[in-house]
């Protein structure tokens, strides 16, 4: 079975070669038949890779420990569902997933192009560049990170999967993030193909827009899932650690955001076509750069992945060839990019958009410096450093606040309307939210007001667009609304979270300003291999009562003590309760209240929805545009 999968993988590499060659023929002869060969070989490649991937999954599920990565990452007794998803819990498997997603998007890309585009030459260029990227990644997979390496003699038992990875986060986070990362390759392919084709005009915008939306929305979801995963697994209470790996995922996300807004700028006259090309190539660059940095192990991060210098060098090589090549091509074909000379006056809203793009790019710059500088420093001086959160708080945060403010700028020339539809709702909702959350500090009120400002202006615009039946703009506005919700969540979490420590006996309770903590019961018991102390803690926040059962466990074999935290999620706050030190009869109960955390994930999900809807809508309606 596994050998079959390996052969299929090699076969798909061969077929992508075939695709490349036949697309070259097609470029020379302009013969549709060659293009058909391309399509056939592309489909076969996709089919082979899918079967091969399924076989790998099967070998995980059936615990075939003769396969090296199964041995290293699986175990007989692991729950079946995690056996299945352990496929992408390791480097080789995750790269295989990457390649599979690449093939999937490539497959969809050609079907979509065939239905919407009649330029044979352009399509054959697309096929050839696509085949080139396929080949590069197949070589990587087959020679540098082969998922089908065998072990002999066959071990009896596997090494098990990291318990951290045995989680719903593993199931969802990598595939979704990869769709985002890999979807960017379609943008790159389309742009480079049009450059080769010596013709770039406004049509390119419509061509790459759905793909940019698709990868942006999936990146949003993927990053949010990662953050959510970290929130409850890696370090309590934090949803973002400014860790290099997290920042890296932000880079393509940011540049895609800039790209989307630039495309929007181009909707009437094509002033910014060159920007679109530059940003498109750059977005794929950051996607590759990110995978290179993460995989090469040169980052100093809390997320350590296995590292192999050869893999790093290869990915670095890919990065340089594809991106430098892309920009070189851009320089060579500069004259074929049809910018409008921009005679028309730039409107106020467009100026705001330009400012927004520039701000997003500045933020990107901030993140890039913070990621690259430590690498250079370590390379030059040998010092390992990481950039503290203070840096981002002084650069990233103010810039984002600025972006949030200008996000709300909309076209209301009517002063009365502005008062009725924006200002009054804004003031009322701010007061309501502040009352709900018991906000006392002025800065927090400002933060909440800015977030709500984004939400309300987006909603107002949404209403306007629905009334005018211009559905194309809806997705973007939904995403803006989501960004407002996200900002609200972040403001709440970072400023309003509190923790309380109560030293109480059984039956006693302690009152803090708005929280009453009481220890109701206490019982001890014995489980399989540990003794536990379980407390029943009642926490009263305002009028609501919650019961918690935190535990303290003492393992018999090594005497190790672990603390099991009890958690409750509500819409307004997450509450965690843990047992602290025990001093005679008095027991220390720690209560942590994290405000508004849920809204971060809700906001991110709304952002994803907006982008995704818009992307699907545009993928289906390209002809009508």
């Amino acid at each position, binding site marked *: 079975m596994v050998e079959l999968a390996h052969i299929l993988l090699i076969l798909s590499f061969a077929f992508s070669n075939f695709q490349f060659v036949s697309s070259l023929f097609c470029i020379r002869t302009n013969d549709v038949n060659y293009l058909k060969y391309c399509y056939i070989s592309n489909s076969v490649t996709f089919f082979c890779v899918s079967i091969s991937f399924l076989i790998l999954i099967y070998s995980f599920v059936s615990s075939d420990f003769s396969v090296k990565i199964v041995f290293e990452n699986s175990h007989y007794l692991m729950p079946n569902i995690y056996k299945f998803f352990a496929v992408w819990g390791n480097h080789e498997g995750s790269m295989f997933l990457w390649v599979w997603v690449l093939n999937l998007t490539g497959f969809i890309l050609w079907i979509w192009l065939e239905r919407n585009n009649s330029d044979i030459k352009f399509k054959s260029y697309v096929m050839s560049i696509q085949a080139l990227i396929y080949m590069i990644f197949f070589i990587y997979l087959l020679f540098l990170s082969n998922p089908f390496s065998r072990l002999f003699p066959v071990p009896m038992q596997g090494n098990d999967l990291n*318990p951290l990875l045995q989680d719903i986060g593993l199931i969802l986070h990598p595939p979704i993030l990869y769709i985002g990362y890999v979807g960017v390759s379609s943008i790159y392919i389309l742009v480079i193909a049009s450059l080769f084709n010596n013709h770039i005009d406004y049509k390119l915008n419509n061509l790459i827009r759905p793909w940019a939306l698709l990868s942006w929305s999936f990146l949003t979801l993927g990053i949010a899932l990662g953050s959510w995963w970290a929130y409850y697994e890696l370090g309590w209470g934090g949803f973002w650690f400014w860790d290099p790996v997290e920042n890296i995922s932000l880079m393509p996300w940011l540049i895609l955001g800039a790209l989307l807004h630039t495309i929007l700028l181009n909707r009437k006259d094509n002033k910014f076509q060159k920007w679109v090309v530059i940003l498109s190539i750059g977005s794929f660059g950051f996607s590759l750069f990110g995978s290179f940095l993460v995989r090469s192990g040169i980052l100093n991060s809390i997320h350590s992945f*296995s590292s192999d210098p050869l893999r790093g060098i290869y990915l670095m090589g890919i990065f340089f060839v594809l991106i430098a090549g892309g920009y070189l091509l851009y320089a060579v074909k500069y004259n074929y990019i049809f910018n409008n000379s921009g005679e028309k006056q730039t409107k106020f809203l467009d100026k705001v958009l330009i400012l927004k793009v520039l701000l997003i790019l500045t933020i990107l710059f901030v993140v890039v410096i913070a990621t690259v500088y430590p690498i250079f420093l370590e390379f030059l001086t040998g010092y390992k450093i990481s950039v503290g959160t203070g840096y981002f708080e002084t650069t990233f945060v103010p810039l984002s606040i600025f972006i949030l403010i200008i996000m709300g700028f909309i076209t209301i020339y009517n002063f009365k309307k502005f008062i009725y539809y924006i200002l009054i709702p804004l003031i009322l909702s701010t007061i309501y939210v502040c009352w709900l959350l018991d906000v006392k500090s002025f800065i927090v009120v400002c933060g909440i007001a800015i977030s709500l400002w984004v939400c309300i202006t987006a909603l107002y615009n949404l209403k306007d667009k629905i009334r005018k039946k211009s559905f194309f703009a809806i997705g973007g506005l939904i995403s803006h609304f989501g960004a407002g919700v996200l900002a609200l969540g972040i403001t709440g979490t970072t400023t309003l979270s509190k923790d309380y420590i109560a030293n109480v006996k059984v039956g006693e309770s302690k009152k803090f300003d708005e929280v009453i903590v009481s220890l109701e019961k206490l019982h001890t018991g014995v489980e399989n291999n540990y003794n536990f102390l379980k407390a029943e803690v009642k926490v009263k926040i305002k009028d609501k009562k919650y019961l918690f059962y935190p535990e303290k466990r003492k393992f018999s074999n090594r005497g*190790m003590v672990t603390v099991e935290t009890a958690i409750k999620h509500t819409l307004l706050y997450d509450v965690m309760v843990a047992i602290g030190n025990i001093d005679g009869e008095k027991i220390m109960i720690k209560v942590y209240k994290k405000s508004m955390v849920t809204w971060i994930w809700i906001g991110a999900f709304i952002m994803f929805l907006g982008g995704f809807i818009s992307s699907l809508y545009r993928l289906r309606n390209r002809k009508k545009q």
Partner: protein
Amino acid sequence: MIKLNIFKNKKVYLSSVLISLILITLITIFFIINLKEYIVYFYNPTEIHKKEILQNSLESNRTIRIGGVVLNDSVMYENDKVYFTITDFSKQVKVVYSGILPSLFREGQGVVATGKMSVEKCGLIFKANEILAKHDEQYLSKEEYEQLKKNYKK
């Protein structure tokens, strides 16, 4: 952004390119200077025991990060605080922390602690204000791996 027809002659064009280049460098320098203020040095236990690094981090009272593996049988809970030892299998650092530990925190697990070095009665200790569990695909330390192997053989 700027109306493109202001670039009527080469001089204006060149000078605008020059100005934007200078602006970009200035911004970069500004960001890097800002960044230098918030740099957090990362050491492993062996490095932190080197004289000049230790001296430096004690005197400057800077926030640093220490990474390593939690030593087996070293976790102790006492008075709302947790004490444990981070090791890189040659040197060790004692760490104290008061807060919720990540749910993955356990002995033999790789962690990164952020905080400050200080000298207390009991000797050198690292006061952490943040503990992050390392996120790793091969989570087992070598010791544990050997232990597991033995168990399977039984």
